[in-house]
């Protein structure tokens, strides 16, 4: 095993052959077989292998994009039942993006947010209310509403802004006091948002209460409607790509470094001149905005929102993704989110089906019901045995010589410009 690992890390030919082989085998078997969870999972596993190869980042990203944009959709187009895989991939993408948003709050800034799904709900409901016939009922047959599927693109931004706004409204009072309270306040906020959405059908019917909003239009672009999960899949990929890019950029920015400084030591970073509340608020608002954005996508995909999708369990699920993958580590969080969402959506239900149908195990023992136990064990286990997660966060290292060279280059440049003037 060790020999294999060393071979993998030393030889690039071996790496590329192995990945090519895996991708080829799994995608053909996925295409030909009617239902094969294993090959689907192995195909996704190739992303992880790709991450550990020693190729340059450009090649890694290019190959990853090729697999995500071309190989997976083609391989999953084999039969009608395989839309299920696309469905799973879409949900996994949404969860990955949300986990990356939560990673900003929990991983980078070190603030525990236990009600993250509230922002997801806000995004989903904003699009749900204004784009569906619900808006017509709300504004009494106004001619503008409902906005329809073309407005989806606008609402991706609106959803992000609304979520960020609520993040700030919630954050301003709470972030001023000590950090521990944040956990419990966000926990309450998540619950309150759900209660409010559940009951906001009177006095004015805004959210249609527990019945939820149906008839939410699917995204439309130049007359083309994204109806199938395989259409939405590309949409999710693009948004996810944007989110990953944004998070990577934030991480190495001045703001990102301030977040990490606050996480390590609040008082010391304050002494270094970092504005505590402002920096924390940025983390809170940005994390929330990613969640709100994905909420809009979620509403458009399901064409239906109701309060039961936004429970505490969802918030904890996203938290588990971040903790399992590794707080503050972008590749780790992506891995954690992929593992947990696929486990949740596919593996647990498959095992449950197998157990109850083939082995006639009573329903009480079905693992699909034991999500809470599973997540609890993951949280406690990671906290005690591996707090850095599956793929620990790596801080960007700066070589002092490089920095100095850069600085002197800059200085000479400015000198030149000043002398020329």
């Amino acid at each position, binding site marked *: 095993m060790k020999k294999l690992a060393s071979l993998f890390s030393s030889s690039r030919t071996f790496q590329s052959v192995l990945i090519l082989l895996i991708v080829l085998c799994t995608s053909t078997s996925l295409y030909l077989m009617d239902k094969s969870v294993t090959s689907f999972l192995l195909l996704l596993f190739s992303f992880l292998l790709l991450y550990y190869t020693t190729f340059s980042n450009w090649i890694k990203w290019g190959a990853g994009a090729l697999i995500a944009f071309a190989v997976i959709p083609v391989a999953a187009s084999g039969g009608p039942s395989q839309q299920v895989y696309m469905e799973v991939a879409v949900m996994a993408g949404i969860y990955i993006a949300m986990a990356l948003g939560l990673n900003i709050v*929990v991983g980078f800034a*070190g603030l*525990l947010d*236990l009600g993250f799904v509230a922002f997801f709900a806000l995004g989903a409901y904003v699009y749900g209310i204004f784009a569906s016939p619900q808006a017509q009922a709300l504004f009494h047959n106004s001619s503008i509403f409902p906005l329809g599927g073309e407005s989806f693109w606008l609402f991706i931004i609106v959803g992000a802004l609304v979520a960020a706004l609520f993040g700030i409204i919630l954050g301003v*009072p*709470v972030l*001023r*006091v*000590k*950090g*521990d*309270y944040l*956990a*419990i*306040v966000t*926990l*309450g*906020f998540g*619950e*309150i948002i759900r*209660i*409010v959405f*559940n*009951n906001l059908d*009177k*006095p004015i019917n805004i959210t249609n209460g527990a019945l939820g909003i149906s008839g939410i239009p699917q995204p439309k672009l130049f007359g083309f409607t994204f109806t199938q999960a395989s259409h939405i899949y590309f949409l999710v990929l693009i948004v996810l790509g944007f989110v990953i890019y944004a998070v990577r950029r934030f991480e190495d920015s001045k703001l990102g470094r301030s977040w990490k400084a606050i996480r390590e030591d609040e*008082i010391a970073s304050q002494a270094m001149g970092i504005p505590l509340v402002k920096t924390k608020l940025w983390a809170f608002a940005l994390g929330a905005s990613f969640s709100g954005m994905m909420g809009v996508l979620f509403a458009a995909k399901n064409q239906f929102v109701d309060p039961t999708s936004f429970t*505490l369990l969802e918030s*904890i699920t996203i*938290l588990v993704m971040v*903790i399992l993958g590794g*707080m503050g580590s972008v590749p780790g969080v992506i891995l954690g989110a992929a593992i947990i969402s696929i486990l949740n959506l596919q593996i647990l239900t498959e095992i449950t089906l197998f157990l109850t149908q083939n082995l006639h195990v009573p329903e*009480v023992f079905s693992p699909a019901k*034991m*999500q*809470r*136990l599973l*997540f*609890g*064990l*993951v*949280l*406690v*286990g*990671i*906290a*005690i045995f591996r*707090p850095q997660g599956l793929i620990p966060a790596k801080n960007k290292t700066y070589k002092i010589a490089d920095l100095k060279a850069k600085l002197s280059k800059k200085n000479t440049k400015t000198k030149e410009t000043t002398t020329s003037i």
Partner: protein
Amino acid sequence: MQEILSTLPQVLLDGLTLGAIYAVVALGYTMVYGILELINFAHGEIFMAGAFIGTALLFTFVDIGLALNWLTLILVLLLASLLTGVLGVGIERIAYRPLRKAPKLIPLISAVGISFILQDLVRFIAEYKTGNYIVTGQTVFENKIAIPAFSIGGYDVHASAIKSNTLVVIGIAVLIMIVLDIFVNRTKWGIAMRAVAQDRDTAALMGINVNKVIALTFFIGSAIGGATGVLYAQQYATINPFIGFILGLKAFTAAVLGGIGNIRGAMFGGLLIGLLEVFAAANLGILTGGALGAEYKDVFAFIILILVLIFKPAGLFGQAVKEKV
């Protein structure tokens, strides 16, 4: 006004009962926070576990033919609090003690994990044994005491009724609070506890066994939490594995309201929140002209929490603590 006043006695009685329950659960939060600076998310679940243990014990007693009277109730209370106390100590030993030196976020995550594990374990056991995770238990005191209608200053006050169990709940809760207060303020162990809460390292230098004191704190907090769970199951009859979560949130709010770490403050905060919540549930519809109803009662505790954090983060009776560097 007439409507609000006419139901006031009932509201006050119910609010006092609920408040007493919040107060005792809040004690557990405040004690652990005072000594470890950790929000013990699992405390709400320990309360819930107490409710289930008590219900299970009562079922067993009925099965073996014991009569249900005050003696059995006391026995159940003692057994349940012993078990939940041990549970609390076990949780501290397994999930918190190894993390005492870790960054602050890590024990919080562990606490959330423990709380989820407990919820699901209890759900599993309840579902396995009874087929449904919502359980309706045995009630020991079922008779009701009626308070007749009367009129005061021209206002008619409706008749109200209390379960005799209400008196038991309030009585035992008050007893727990008084005993705990004496214990913390007057005994040697209580002094040790306060010393550890103030400064763990110095306390250790003074010859206090810090680990033992922390374990004791968890034992007492969890034991009284579990006992309250039994009382809750007696009062409201129907329990499910998820009662601990929102109740824990409110009890924590009570602890913050009273000044976290302050035991008397937690008692007061609990009573206040219980009263406010029942008052809101009964009268919100009347006050807002039917726009908002009792379904928003859970929102109240949360709004109070936010308001306290904005205007008086140290709580009503707490002292603002300077952070040690």
